């Protein structure tokens, strides 16, 4: 019979001998594999849940060079041409933002579930009626709501300016709505050449609306 230096250990009931450093390196694979398994599971869950985004051709599109008088890439900053977009309207048509170039445009991001948006909407409706003779266009971009909700809200509040639906929030993200607070409503005042002259985060009262419209209307606001 062969003698063994630490028989009790080998018989499996005494405290196990610790691994030597070389073994430590080898066995690191085991916890790493467990960790990889957990992280892999998380990644799978996350990607499975993130697949809700629609890729239907709507969203941000390239702004034609001829429509960018700044010569700089489109951005939502004052003095820049805003990012162009193509969105679906509540009636099922399409709306391309750059098609309105040549008009002073108030681009307003809203949703009917947003209380401040509901609060400012009568002011926008009134302003549109007041200045449409000067060519003012208000483009209302609703965030991620069904068309039926948008249409009902438009009918109730008497909205007659163009509306579009940003179904996955891609356009809102590109326009960095709400700035640091990332909230609704957000308004951008764009002159007839397509350059952003001002922006406002939060509900517009009549005075603040008039002050900003004066920057883009050809005859100024009254």
């Amino acid at each position: 019979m062969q003698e063994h230096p630490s028989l009790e250990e080998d018989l499996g009931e005494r405290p196990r001998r610790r691994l030597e450093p070389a073994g430590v390196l080898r066995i690191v694979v085991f916890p790493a594999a467990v960790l990889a398994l957990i992280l892999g599971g998380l990644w799978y869950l996350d990607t499975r849940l993130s697949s809700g985004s629609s890729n239907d051709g709507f969203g941000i599109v390239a702004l034609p060079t001829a429509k960018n008088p700044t010569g700089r890439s489109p951005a939502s900053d004052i003095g820049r041409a805003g990012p162009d977009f193509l969105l679906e309207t509540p009636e099922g048509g399409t709306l391309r933002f750059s098609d309105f170039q040549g008009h002073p445009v108030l681009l307003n991001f809203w949703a009917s579930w947003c209380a401040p948006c509901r609060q400012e909407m009568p002011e926008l409706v009134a302003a549109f009626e007041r200045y449409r003779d000067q060519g003012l266009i208000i483009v209302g971009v609703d965030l991620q709501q069904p068309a039926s909700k948008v249409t009902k809200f438009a009918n109730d509040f008497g909205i007659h300016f163009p509306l579009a639906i940003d179904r996955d929030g891609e356009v809102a993200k590109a326009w960095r709505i709400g700035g640091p607070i990332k909230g609704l409503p957000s308004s951008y005042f764009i002159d007839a050449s397509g350059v952003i002259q001002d922006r406002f985060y939060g509900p517009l009262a009549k005075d603040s609306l008039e002050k900003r419209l004066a920057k883009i209307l050809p005859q100024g606001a009254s």
Partner: protein
Amino acid sequence: MATSVESSARGWPRSARTSDLLVWLWRLLASAQLAVALTGFLALAGFLAVMIPQVPVPVRGNPFAVDVWLETQRAHFGPFTEAMHRLGLFDVVHTWWFLAGLGLLAVSVCVYTADRFLSIWGNVTKPREVVPDSFFDRAANRFTVATAEGGAGRLEAVLRRRRFQVRHAIDGESTYLFADRFAWAQLGTFVSHLALVLFLAGGLVSKTQGYTNGLLIAEGTTSPIFAVSNPHQILVEVVDAVGKFDNAGAPTDYHSQLILYQNGKEVKRGSITVNKPMFYGGYRFHQAGYLSEGAALRVRDVTSGNLIYDEALAMQDLIPAPAVVVHDAQGAVVLDDVIVPTDFVGQASGTLVSMPDGREFWVGVAPGVAKNAWRLVVYDPKHETAQLSVAQGDSAQLGGLKWTFSETTGLPSITTEGVPGDNAQSLVVLSTSRPGGDYLTVLGPVDGRALTLYPNQPVPIGDEEYTFAGRREFAGIEVRRDPGAKFIWVAAGLLIAGLMVSFYVPRLRLWARVRGGETVIAGPAERSGAFQTEMKRLTRELDAAQEGPDG
């Protein structure tokens, strides 16, 4: 060149020190003592979290709200409050030291498991089958029995019957047996350790990936569950919110009909209750509350016909209002109603009430001297000296009328901004008249006047038309995503399985030497008594086997 030599001269010892440090660190993390100490530390922290009030969830993350909450704790903890706050004792599970302890325990369990895995795996798959003769003389557990001829064969047969896997070897006069039963059960400890790791991973996943949001949504309205412009935004519409109550007013059931929208499309609809949530996209939507006191208020521009205000107001405040019964000189009841306050004078709130004879009295309530006590206050505006103050349940005479203060009730109300009119703020009060119909009192939009609105009866004032569109119930919806819950369930299953295997599978390893008329059976050192129990059974079965063929 000199630099190279120097570097090399200094580098070698540093490398050795680093190696020693790693080994020391590995052994520290692999020690059971550290795991026990960390578990005790976390248990103590958990105990503190239970015993000491913790910052409520809605307050967390808002420094101002936390400061206000801390003020309420000063009454209990006095001058220690600030120090306890700095130590994180009011938010234990989110402190760096608790999370560090948790993380260290997870690492410790992983290292402990890894440190022992290969040796135990080897012990299971490649056990030492042959032991030296000396082992049979000094093993902690050993048993000697006299054996007749053919004893080795009988022992092997009995061991096999008792579910041992047996191997034998013959060395001269001696026969050696190695018997192993349920050796795989040694791996049960790893299953338990994996469970612990998964518990900790589940907690980590819940903390980093979990999501909870509470929404209060009125019937017929929609609310987003995430911050604005989240590409995975889900909108929740409450179609109907229902609350059922027993005769004592205790709630018996809350449920709501929901529709979920994503990317502008309806993706799910159904009913939810407190215990039966709706699931979508990994999120759980369940009823967490109910508010019956809501009102839909609409204001229309008379000229254009457009809505300029459309809100469902959650009446979450209560405004004190007296229930008053007034009798005339003949004893006839001339007033029996709850008085909705429209004037607020100091601490008193009330309104001008017209009597059937055309006289007007200001009727209201004011706080009494005792806590939660109210007094009815009545005065005649035309004769200001004519006034009375009555405690709840009492009566008094004024103006030839008997005024009885029945009780003080709280009327649902809200102070809100944005109602079109002259004032920035409005007080809206929801009341129910004696016949049972709801009505809304709106104070503020038109200076000096209180609007009383009955359901769907528009009241035009100037360019605006005000409409109470009816009572609206609100559903409190909790939206929760807890990917860590899956880990916890799996971990719980594994822990039970691991413990069952470790404690209830009768694993045993034996070595036997049969020589001449004597058999020595030896087992590893353990104090569970399993060896002794097994020996008794073995002896019984060996005796039976020995007697059987002879008998």
